[in-house]
């Protein structure tokens, strides 16, 4: 008997418990900018961006993720931001390669739209069929050494967000 049959055979249906449905009563009063700050991102105006990162790059689609290993500052478009936690939804369609927002040293994301919380975020994603997408909240970080927060573990060392909403 295959492992599949074995496992499924051992699972007895339990007394039915209903799925609770959509979550009701979620708070909506969140400030995207405040959340961005909490997750360690920096928010700038288009003019400031010009001054800080004059040499940022927008890159063409590539199948070769390794070719992005030397990218210093990458500029991309986020689909929307989530006010409650500062996360930005990205899909591979808007990325040069799936590894792009991780492998670059610094990341710049433009955000056109903000939703209040994660429930609203997944409502946006109802018909999403992208092969890869992610919520990205701030720069890469770790606190694995004595709980000391260090920014820039393996992914981008900084996240700069420009809000156009």
């Amino acid at each position: 008997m295959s492992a599949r049959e074995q496992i499924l055979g051992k699972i007895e249906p339990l007394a039915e418990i209903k799925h609770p449905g959509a979550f009701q009563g979620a708070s909506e009063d969140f400030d995207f900018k405040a959340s961005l700050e909490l997750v360690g991102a920096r928010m700038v105006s288009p003019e400031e961006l010009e001054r800080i990162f004059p040499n940022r790059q927008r890159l063409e689609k590539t199948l070769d993720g390794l070719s992005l290993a030397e990218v210093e500052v990458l500029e991309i478009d986020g689909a929307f931001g989530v006010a409650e936690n500062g996360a930005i939804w990205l899909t591979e369609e808007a990325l040069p390669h799936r590894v792009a927002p991780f492998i670059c040293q610094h990341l710049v994301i433009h955000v056109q739209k903000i939703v209040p919380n994660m429930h609203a975020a997944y409502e946006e994603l109802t018909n999403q069929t992208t092969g890869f997408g992610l919520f990205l909240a701030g720069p890469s970080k770790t606190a694995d050494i004595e709980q000391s927060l260090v920014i820039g573990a393996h992914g981008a060392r900084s996240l700069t967000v420009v809000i156009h909403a």
Partner: protein
Amino acid sequence: MLSHSEASENFIADAERTDWHDETLWFVRAKRDKASKVLPEWEALREHASQVKDHTLANLGEYLVAFEAKANANGIHVHWAADAAEHNAIVHKIIADQGSKILVKSKSMLTEECHLNDYLAEKGIEVVDTDLGERIVQFRNEAPSHIVLPAIHLKKEDVGETFHKHLGTPKGNKDPQFLTEAARQHLRGHFLASEVAITGVNFAIAETGEFVVCTNEGNADMGAHLAKVHIACMGIEKIIPKRADLAVFLRLLARSATGQLITTYSSHFHKPREGQEMHIVLLDNGRTRQLADPKYKNSLKCIRCAACFNTCPVYRRSGGHSYHQPVAGPIGSILAPNIDKKANADLPFASTLCGSCSNVCPVKINIHEQLWFWRQDLMAAGLAPIGKSIGMKLMAYTLAHPAIYRLGGSLLRRFSGLLNSGLNPWYKQREMPQAPKESFQEWYKKR
């Protein structure tokens, strides 16, 4: 193997370090409190998450089959493994087909449960753990001591020493920023070179066939997106029905774990990228047995946030290694006996049954009650420590027989040295109260 109490004795021998460990984890617990109290709907979220998990477990077979069908349609290869040996063999075959001798792996407690690294090492394949904390403990040939903070038992001096030895960082340098940078450079080389990447899975969605991996460092993504082959390993209990359910779980997970609003990266793997091979291994390894037992099935709701570790007065003062299991703490103490009752018979006793674990659990697992259920099962199965067995029987007998109770009381009052000795395990590290000259009954009769 040392039992939990024996290993704890070694851990607390260094009082200063024990205090540091205790306070550091309590600090994480306090951050969780702060993050949860910002949301007025926190308790409703916990209840909702608990109900979604209850519903999923009640229909687990159906959801697994639905997930498999969707994932297959998305171009992901789905494998089933009944136990750890099958899991390891499946993973090994995928790697061998690719011809790799070295690979990167992000955090996966399931692969720890299966001892995958050791298994692959025997086959001549090196696994490079890429989570910073996991890399540190891997260098030291230790197991992670916490499922979210794998190196929380170490001080920065220890990490400095370890990196000096393995990465050639200057001797004596213990600056976390510097050491993290050294690890970044070291691991980047492995990310760029590895053709196979293994990751864990936080959630798998039956409705869409996608799976979600959460990290703060970005190591899972660095590995998976550069490798030709991505293998994701998950327990069958990681399934949730719908994508929209993620909203509730992602709101709870990071807030419960570290007090963060959300992990830095919550990656949704739906289809392999062009030219990539993607595999998912679904592991049982005792989970169906747990599911069939009404007393313990709830433990399968766990989302591995480790809030119960951070709040546990026993975990904080005994350290993760004392639990001799990949998943330590209160949740580990109710999961481990299901896999091996005899080897883990000590763990359900490593608790004060204070109930704090159940109170912080984001999916409302009745952890402290299950600890108590396990104690009863283990006593009944004759697996409790012999001293405890005899002690409990003696106590039950004494309490049931008033004459013996009175005689025992009067003897102990007269020879209180018996209580203040090695014969009494409770005496260790405690000051026993002075025994009164007479019992209440004796005093009352004299009036």
